């Protein structure tokens, strides 16, 4: 800055006429500079040893040296805590119990927090919590860089204060006009939020809370309400079931909110010679149908018929004598239900109140122990009629204000246009949204809400079980909870936290500790045994009403996928890349069609030169709405039926890579998942699928997935059905597993880890795949790379179809192919799956072979064996010859073809400053050119060992965990130390069902599979 200060050099300057001052002004230097001394003496200069060239050399050197010294690597500053927070110890993870309740997924979970960052979701097993793939992946949605980052009014940023004052004045306007205020939310299981909405009503009068589920279970709720008086969903404890008959219910998927798989798996593991029998009638090949013992392909309209007949046979004792395959199947199922009595259960996924009534009536008639009508579930509350009424009222100008929370109706409503029109007619429209989605862009005020990991909250997922939600990180953006917003509008000065705590203390805790409840995540209230209220409903009338539903040539079944669900987490790359458990296709939705229909229409699926799958396109029209969709030919799809997944085709608030598929909600007329009157037309062009498994059958290789029947399992020696391959040693046939080229190390000392995978308990749900992604920083590679067969999943779930009716038939067929031509024709035939195949799932990760083929071939010893049984990768040492991957019989090694973490070509979470925050600091982020694979979560086992050591105790029984075994609440994956005999895995490894994958290769893996047992007993 310029200054007016004058600095005096001497007293002389006071005298303005001083000659000295004048001279000094002219001459910069007081004394003469002795230039002559330097340059005058030419002779001297010439004799000087410093030549001009030398001088230039010195200048050059000094310049170079100076600039070199100036070169320094960029300094990344990390600032240590001045005052360390009590609960943050760098390097040590903290776990917080909380609850996920986003309107579609509800789960009691534990959140792993490292240095203040939530990085992983685990099931809260103390609270019977279980997690599906979406719950596991939800942590990444926290770090979604396209979230709504602050309040907006008509698309422009606004401050909270301005927004509040404007909204409150409009609310008052509405109040004065006497118009109702509609609060439209997704399923809200939170009692405190409901209280706040009531408070809003008290303040502004006439508040109408409309609950809207994008994927509706309204029919089931209506039916249950009609029969039992409460608008809730019954719970099913499938663990108790001996016979499960499902008519179109994907109960291992998202049927009635999902979460039934843990109980189901327990009933499927043979214990005391018994396991449940599961009969499935369905049109799409679902996860549930794939796990069934007996599966029938039934068109949606015929499912109604099947249900009516089942009702007649079980409840009324009328056996229809028609000799149709469907009728036979129904009669047999009915006989089995009758035989099992109260241990049987019937469930249906038909979105029709009458159908739901029939199913409930059957369960009532057999007095089923499986269904629980007392402790009901609150995971779906949507009311289709109320939503339809709201839209009508909005368009009629009868609504003053619409406040939307946790819902994206503009995207998910089939009549979204009407809703948008209606929004224009209301005085005030507000959306409280975490995402900058379609609805947030259609309303006047879009108020940013935090992710559930940044929020307080509560939920009653199941009657009597109160769950708490607590923040695990400070809000990343300028967001405010819906509940805090409501408090502000109603003029309260307290925060939602205070409100929540107070209402819990007064209403829930009964004097118990709030802190303890917060620590546990749940608080269970005893439910008094009460007789279920049953009202009289004319079931027969419901049946005859249901019988009126007409079918058509082509009928569409809308379903939700394991990955995207209702589509609210569409911007989550982990879920986009998670292959569908059945089709094993990622990054897409598509029309599934039976092979027969495809042939009739001229639809084809074929593999291009690099193996990737391409399929024909068809134009589908339903109710006057047309869309061009790709077709995937699906074995097991009922003839005349089509399947299409909801949740895709979102555009707003999504990275361009995530804008996959087509929006199927437009066909979801009247919230019915079955849509008749479909017309199809083949159109030009092809669609490119990103399918991770390109070969669908097991090729008669019965030793990969060993199977047996419950009868054989009970009555025949295990050597008969768990056949160990034999080799000839000194002219004696001995078990191949006993022959060894090498001398083995003594593995009885120290820890020796094994992972046991029960093929009976595994439903193929994919939670472990996402858990592995999160734990091990597995990169997302995107659709194009998946098409090149370059998925990076460390853990995959292989799905096989049988060519014959079942896999035993395949084995037989293969053994019967004689001669070269016979063999060739048989193998070629085996490549095609059956029309209604038997399905098997097999999770495959690195098998951690004790004699690993990968270890011997690595030229630089980058992969070698650990003392604890793990096959380890030293990424630093790897030069990337890929020899190990070639020599791996299980093909579990994954090569980093590109630099995935820092490469704009792969714009997924790892290339996003925010998305990087989800990375697990305990696991290296691999660079390009190195091989990576499952490490058996060595960082977790080491942490467990260290923890025990620090606490001065031996490792507890079953204390060792891997990410996958932790995520698997079905009990399919059990990890532990086989040298520790109390560990469950030690006995599992010796079970008579235990076998190793590809035993004959002699790799001696540390992953144990359990023979899949199928219940083929028909009554």
């Amino acid at each position, binding site marked *: 800055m310029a200054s007016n200060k004058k600095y005096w050099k001497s007293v002389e300057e006071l005298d303005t006429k001083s000659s000295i001052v004048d001279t000094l002004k002219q001459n910069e230097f007081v004394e003469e500079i002795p230039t002559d001394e330097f340059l005058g003496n030419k002779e001297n200069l010439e004799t000087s040893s410093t030549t001009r060239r030398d001088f230039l050399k010195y200048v050059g050197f000094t310049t170079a040296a100076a600039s070199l010294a100036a070169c320094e690597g960029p300094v990344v500053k990390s600032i240590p805590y001045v005052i360390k927070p009590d609960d943050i110890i760098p390097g040590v993870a903290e776990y917080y119990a909380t609850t996920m309740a986003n309107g579609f997924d509800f789960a009691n979970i534990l959140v792993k927090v490292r240095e203040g960052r939530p990085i992983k979701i685990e099931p809260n097993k103390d609270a019977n919590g279980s997690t599906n793939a979406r719950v596991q992946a939800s942590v990444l949605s926290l770090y979604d860089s396209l979230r709504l980052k602050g309040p907006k009014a008509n698309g422009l940023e606004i401050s909270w204060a301005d927004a509040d004052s404007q909204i409150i004045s409009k609310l008052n306007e509405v109040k004065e006009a006497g118009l109702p205020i509609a609060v439209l939310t997704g399923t809200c299981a939170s009692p405190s939020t409901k209280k706040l909405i009531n408070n809003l009503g008290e303040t502004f009068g006439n508040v109408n809370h409309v609950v809207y589920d994008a994927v509706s279970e309204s029919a089931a709720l209506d039916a249950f309400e009609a029969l039992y008086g409460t608008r809730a969903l019954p719970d099913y404890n499938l663990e108790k079931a001996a016979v499960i008959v499902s008519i179109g219910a994907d109960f291992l998927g998202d049927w009635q909110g999902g979460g039934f798989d843990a109980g189901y798996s327990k009933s499927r593991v043979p214990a005391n010679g018994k396991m449940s029998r599961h009969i499935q009638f369905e049109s799409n090949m679902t996860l549930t149908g794939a796990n069934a013992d007996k599966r029938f392909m039934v068109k949606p309209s015929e499912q109604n018929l099947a249900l009516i007949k089942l009702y007649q046979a079980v409840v009324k004792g009328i056996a229809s004598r028609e000799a149709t395959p469907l009728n036979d199947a129904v009669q047999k199922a009915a006989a089995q239900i009758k035989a099992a009595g109260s241990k049987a259960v019937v469930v249906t996924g038909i979105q029709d109140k009458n159908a739901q009534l029939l199913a409930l009536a059957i369960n009532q008639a057999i007095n089923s122990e499986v269904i629980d009508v007392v402790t009901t579930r609150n995971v779906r509350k949507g009311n289709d009629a109320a939503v339809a009424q709201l839209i009508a009222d909005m368009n009629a100008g009868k609504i003053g204000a619409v406040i939307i929370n946790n819902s994206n109706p503009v995207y998910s409503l089939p009549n979204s246009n009407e809703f948008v029109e209606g929004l224009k007619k209301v005085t005030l429209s507000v959306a409280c949204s975490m995402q900058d989605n379609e609805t947030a862009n259609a309303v006047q005020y879009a108020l940013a809400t935090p992710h559930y990991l940044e929020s307080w909250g509560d939920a009653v997922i199941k009657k009597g079980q109160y769950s708490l939600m607590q923040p695990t990180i400070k809000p990343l953006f300028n967001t405010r909870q819906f509940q805090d917003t409501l408090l502000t509008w109603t003029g309260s000065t307290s925060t939602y936290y205070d409100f929540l705590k107070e209402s819990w203390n007064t209403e829930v805790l009964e004097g118990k500790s709030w802190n303890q409840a917060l620590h546990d995540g749940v608080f269970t209230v005893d439910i008094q045994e009460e007789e279920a209220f049953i009202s009289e409903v004319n079931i027969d009338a419901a049946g005859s009403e249901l019988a009126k539903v007409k079918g058509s040539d082509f009928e569409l079944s809308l379903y939700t996928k394991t990955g995207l669900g209702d589509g609210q987490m569409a911007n989550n790359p982990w879920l986009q890349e998670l292959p569908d458990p059945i089709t094993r296709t990622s990054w897409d939705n598509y029309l599934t069609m039976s092979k027969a229909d495809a042939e009739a229409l001229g639809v084809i699926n074929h593999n291009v030169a690099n193996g990737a799958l391409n399929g024909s396109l068809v134009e589908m029209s339903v109710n006057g709405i047309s869309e061009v969709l790709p077709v995937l030919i699906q074995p097991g799809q009922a003839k005349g039926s089509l399947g299409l997944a909801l949740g895709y085709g979102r555009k707003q608030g999504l990275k361009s890579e995530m804008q996959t598929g087509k929006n199927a909600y437009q066909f979801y007329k009247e919230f019915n998942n079955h849509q008749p009157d479909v017309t199809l037309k083949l159109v030009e062009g092809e669609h490119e699928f990103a399918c991770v498994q*390109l070969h669908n059958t097991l090729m008669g*290789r019965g030793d990969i997935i060993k199977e047996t029947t419950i009868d054989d399992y009970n009555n025949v020696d295990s050597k008969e059905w768990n056949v160990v391959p034999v080799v000839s040693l000194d002219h004696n046939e001995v078990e191949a597993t006993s022959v060894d080229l090498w001398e083995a190390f003594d593995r009885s000392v120290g820890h020796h880890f094994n992972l046991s995978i029960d093929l009976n308990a595994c439903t193929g749900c994919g939670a472990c795949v996402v858990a592995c992604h999160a734990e091990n920083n597995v990169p997302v590679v995107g659709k194009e790379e998946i098409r090149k067969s370059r998925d990076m999943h460390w853990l995959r779930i292989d799905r096989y179809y049988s060519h014959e009716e079942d896999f035993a038939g395949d084995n037989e067929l293969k053994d019967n192919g004689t001669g070269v031509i016979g063999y060739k024709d048989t193998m070629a035939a085996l490549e095609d799956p059956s029309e209604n195949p038997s399905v098997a799932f097999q999770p495959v990760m690195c098998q951690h072979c004790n004699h690993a083929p990968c270890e011997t071939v690595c030229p630089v010893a980058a992969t070698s064996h650990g003392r604890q049984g793990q096959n380890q990768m030293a990424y630093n040492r790897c030069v990337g010859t890929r020899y190990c991957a070639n020599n791996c019989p299980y093909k579990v090694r994954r090569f980093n073809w590109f630099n995935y973490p820092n490469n704009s070509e792969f714009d997924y979470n790892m290339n996003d400053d925010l998305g990087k925050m989800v990375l697990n600091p305990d696991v290296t982020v691999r660079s390009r050119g190195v091989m990576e694979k499952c490490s058996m979560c060595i960082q977790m086992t080491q942490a467990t060992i260290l923890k025990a050591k620090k606490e001065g105790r031996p490792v507890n029984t079953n204390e060792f965990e891997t990410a996958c075994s932790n995520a698997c609440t079905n009990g399919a994956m059990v990890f532990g130390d086989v040298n520790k005999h109390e560990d469950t895995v030690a006995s599992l490894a010796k079970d008579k069902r235990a076998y190793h994958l590809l035993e004959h290769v002699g790799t001696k893996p540390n992953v144990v599979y359990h023979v899949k047992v199928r219940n083929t007993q028909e009554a």
Partner: protein
Amino acid sequence: MSSHYEAPIRRPLIVGDKSYHDITVEVAAPVEGKANKLWWTAFTIALLAFLWGIGSIIYTIGTGIGVWGLNKTVGWAWDITNFVWWVGIGHAGTLISAVLLLFRQKWRMGINRSAEAMTIFSVVQAGLFPVIHMGRVWNAHFVLPIPNQFGTLWTNFNSPLLWDVFAISTYLSVSLVFWWTGLLPDFAMLRDRAVRPFQKKIYSLLSFGWTGRAKDWQRFEEVSLVLAGLATPLVLSVHTIVSFDFATSVIPGWHTTIFPPYFVAGAVFSGFAMVNTLLIIMRKVSNLEAYITKQHIELMNIVIMITGSIVGCAYITELFIAWYSGVEYEQYAFLNRATGPYWWAYLLMMSCNVFSPQFMWSKRLRQSITFSFIISIVVNIGMWFERFVIIVTSLHRDYLPSSWTMFSPTFVDIGIYVGTIGFFFVLFLLYARTFPVIAQAEVKSILKSSGEAYKLFRDAGGKNPAPAKKITKTVKTTPKVVVEDASEQKNTLLGTLGVFDAATQTADDLKLISGVGPKLEKTLNTIGIYSFNQVSKMTEKEYDLLDSLLDSFKGRAKRDDWAGQAKKLKNNG
């Protein structure tokens, strides 16, 4: 070489009537002459291909192996296919130079130099692939057992890939030394003939001071034998070790004990085919038909036929063993090879490698140069597909059907392969213009035993080949004719220059003219030229006449401008 005798029924290895000098001149001709248009065209094409390859390699290293068509199931495809293909091609050179040397096969001498050059150049191509196929090339030194900062971290001596490192580097170094040793006398020959100082300097450096003393020759022979002894096991070992990359694995279709001999046979097979391809072109372009004869090509065709049949046997054995083993994975691997999605590659392999060499049973076909050339190309295509079939079809459908997929190359895969072909030809074309492409020193040693003219002489009844030389010489220069012509020309010449009269004129000292020595002066005097005056009258016509009269120093008079010099001397005098 103790005797110059060779059975008359053996066909000559040097056709035509060649002297030692002719051999020297003809071998040196491509080096001393200027490159023609054809060479430049070929070189430009090769260079462009090479540059494309370099571009593709830079792209790969800069971006990642992902730019190739590989995937999680097929971890090797064109990279290792090309590697094995190039190593295989390299085999013929060492077999020809080492094994045939030990077996005293004299026909090797015409082709061994180029065959060895081919070996070295193709091993250079081969060596490229194990390096660039690494995901992290910049850590390639990890595969060398060198001390490192990690203390005792050592390479994995169990890994066949490590054995490859040793096998290939040993092979390259031994081949190079062997090649160079053989080149010493020939480089010395080029050095001695070199006119320009730069070339002389280079060739004298390359020839390591070869003087041609008896001691030099004795050592040369000894070293050649020792190196041949060292190189012979390498012929077998290198491809054996390359085959271990596959044979020691657990993948059906790779895990095959027949691989070592089968790979060596295949390597010799493809190597000879490549030698045929190169030499059939070279003998034409560099006018070496006399040294690389039909006989050579026929013999190589026989080797191709035999090794091709061995390879065919191996293919069939593999199929038999797959069936006989009763292992379903093994059976399916071979069924899939023949009838799966890559059946066309298998068919190409079978028809090119097993079927096509069978034509060589016909003498007429194996003596046909054109046919040999076509078959040599076909065999190399077939051998490339053999490696592709082994590598890709075994990997793409192995144990677990869930991982089965396909492979298709990208433009980078193709670019690198074409680039190595370009690089190979760049090296070979440069070699053809700067190296003695025939081992002339060795060829000279069989001239008298296997040269056509000598054989004919012996057939005609001559006992000692020595007189044959005289006969040929006398036939060449008939003195009588020279004398007759000379007098007439002398008269014409002196007619223009004027006759020197010793009485009236004094003879000048013609030695003062630069380029005229005492001997030439005497010759000029015998013609009748004594004075500067006479010389100064010389024009174009006279120079020509003079040249026809001189035995040697032809053209010198004109070049040194004697007339001009004489004019000056005359005026000064």
